[in-house]
């Protein structure tokens, strides 16, 4: 029941909401998270962020995360879109939607999905700074802790 996509193109949040909810009178709440590229890292100006992934594995990993969410909450549908390639500051990176009869399940599943996406899907971010430097983003212990609490 999840729509899952990995793409270079931007996504349209309104269109994804509409696709998930069109004609669905069983849904009472939709939780959503959108992650975007920040224009600085500790004050150092970012030129772009490049997202690399492992194509043969990515959709499988995302499907496994979605299945885990569906096993934990009674969801009526959901969406995961993750962008790859070169993204400029302010660009959207990831979209998560989770629909349920009640808000508790929709919001919990939204938090779960983004926490697990950050730690269990094969994406890697490289930051390219305006000063010419490049840095592969390091995994945050806080993200591991956030994923582990579910």
């Amino acid at each position: 029941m999840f729509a899952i996509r990995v793409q270079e193109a931007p996504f349209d949040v309104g269109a994804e909401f509409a696709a998930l909810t069109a004609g669905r009178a069983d849904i009472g709440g939709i939780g959503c998270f959108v992650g975007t590229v920040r224009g600085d890292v500790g004050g150092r100006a970012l030129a772009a962020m490049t997202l690399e992934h492992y194509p043969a594995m990515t959709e499988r990993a995302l499907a496994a995360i979605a299945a885990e969410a569906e096993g934990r909450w009674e969801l009526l549908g959901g969406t995961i879109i993750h962008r790859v390639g070169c993204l400029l500051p302010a660009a959207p990176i990831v979209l998560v939607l989770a629909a349920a009869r009640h808000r508790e399940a929709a919001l919990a599943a939204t938090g779960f999905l983004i926490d697990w996406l950050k730690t269990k899907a094969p994406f890697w971010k490289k930051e390219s700074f305006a000063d010419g430097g490049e840095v592969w983003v390091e995994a945050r212990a806080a993200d591991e802790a956030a994923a582990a609490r579910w």
Partner: protein
Amino acid sequence: MSGFRVHLLYFAWLRERIGCGEEEIEVPAEIRTLGALSAWLAARGPGYASAFAAGKSVRAAINQSFAGPEAAIGPGDEVAFFPPVTGG
């Protein structure tokens, strides 16, 4: 005793240090686990040594599933090495 072929993939800074993202290689028959394969690859040259020197911060997948150093590898496996993931 003859070896076996595996398909190797490297991502992010492992790919950059090794200098290529993908290769098909013949592995000695005595290499049975992911950990043994990492150690064997690390001895192949300075790029590999640099990539695998990071030790614990190298993660891996066998046939598109995350796997630890004790996981068994065999003929025809697709084995990927990469840093901890940072998507989302």
